[in-house]
């Protein structure tokens, strides 16, 4: 098992049925739910890494509240957006970022 969204039907918070949305990640379509952050969409879709550090090492979410800047993505062409802080919108184009040697 991996990261997943609590099913709306079993959510103690009494969520109404999910409103689906779609984003693309490096061109690939990814399904999400309205209200999720981009990090939430990526994690719930089974992705754990979407950025690489200076050595090329993979990174994803670490702090989840905007302090660590590990989860940076490019959203609709704008670089360095914290995926954990940005609410996903239907149609968002997300691109992963790299700090690796090839990016220098």
């Amino acid at each position, binding site marked *: 098992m991996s990261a997943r969204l*609590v099913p709306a039907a079993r959510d103690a*918070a009494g969520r109404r049925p999910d409103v689906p949305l779609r984003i693309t990640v490096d061109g690939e379509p990814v399904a999400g739910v309205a209200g999720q952050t981009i990090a939430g969409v990526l994690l719930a879709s089974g992705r754990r*890494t979407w950025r690489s550090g200076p050595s090329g090492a993979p990174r*994803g979410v670490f*702090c989840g509240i905007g302090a*660590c*800047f590990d989860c940076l993505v490019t959203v609709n062409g704008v670089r360095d957006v914290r995926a954990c802080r940005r609410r996903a919108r239907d149609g968002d184009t997300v691109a992963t970022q790299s700090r690796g040697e090839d990016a220098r």
Partner: protein
Amino acid sequence: MSRLVVVVGAGPAGLGAAAGALRAGADVTLVDASEHPGGQYHRMLPGAFAAAHPGRLHHGWRGFERLRDHVLRHPRCDWWPESTVWSLERPGEGAPVVHVLRGEADAAGRERLVLRPDALVLAPGAHDRVLPFPGWELPGVYTAGAAQALAKGERLVVGDPVLIAGSGPFLLPVAASLIEAGATVLEVLEANPAATAARGWGRRPWELAPDAGKAGELAGYALLLARHRVPYRTGRAVIEARGDGRVEEAVTARLRPDWSVVPGTERTVPVDALCVSHGFSPQLELPVAAGCALTRTPGGAFTEVDADQRTTAPGVYAAGEITGIGGAPAARTEGLLAGWIAGGGDPRAREAAALSRRRDRARAFAARLAAAHPIGAAWPGWLREETVVCRCEETTYGSLRRAAGDQASGSARAVKLGTRAGLGPCQARVCGPTVAELLSGRVPGANPHHRPIAQPIRLGELASPPTENTPKPDRKESAR
């Protein structure tokens, strides 16, 4: 015209401060980077979820709702969600000028606004402090706060099964949230031995009584853990994470009271996610930018405040975790008092005296927490030469030690520039206190919280002139 109090942060402390200042008769502008008030403690679900029972995920929800609704609906309160303070400017006299970016998180072309308050209350809160260990940069290793934020804020479990480790009472609500959300929690590891925790909790038990609420909350979590047969082990820590491109297993070990590893006690636990927190780091860039003095405590640096929550900077007040880690009830009380005084309220008023007493009790409780969950001095023993200390720049423990060991490489700033520790995108928010600790005694110190640009601002935004936001006394009436 009445006083304008700007409150930065809408968590328990900031909401309290707004309420206090409103009660004192001031105009309030409440600024928070999130879309919703509540902070990390009462992190709200997104509106799109249209949750019927959000309170079921929270402790003290009804009190929060009352406070939130009172503040946000108040005619003298201006609520600025999605508003980031990127700079505080110190004029010759009076409170700092507040520079704000308003718009979607990290968007380009956000609106630049300037507030010139009569008094400023800083309540930005804290984030997890995680000590480095080999493999902590692997995906799947989260701060406990991340697991909590994702579970409470958008109903996502970060993995299954999960191991929770570190130190402090915060590990319990995180475990509770993950269990509630349906994840299997393998165990909760508190690095301090039971004796240390007992000494902190057990001394002067009368101090605990007024905070029965907080203690009761924690007892509730412990009960939940027991019901789900989740072991809570003391004196044990995660000392390494392993995996190929993601965490696959955690290495745990027994610790001595000073957090040195007891050899031969290592155990390998397969995990899907690992959640770690060794305490909290207050977000001190705004108080530092405002010119506030810090106090150094064994638990780290905090904003220095007097009995009225006044900082050493003119017109600046502080409340909540930036004055000491005390939890939500303490933060709210400090906020109420800070807001009351900042709004021009009489410090000798009966209510203020009552708030002061409550605040003092909450602080005593916080001191006990700190005593029960200290960070053991021998923790660097689990680091290796190649362990990453600065996650952004991948500065290793070995390179930091070499730089600090060389006499000529000298000042902390030179070591930083040479090793790049703390120079990456997070600007030392994560590694700053750790690097300062690892270098302490070897190089003259630098302030790891000095971030005059408190949040990233895009060049185009910076180049555009800001809008002055001078509130008019009747602004609410005219807006409605």
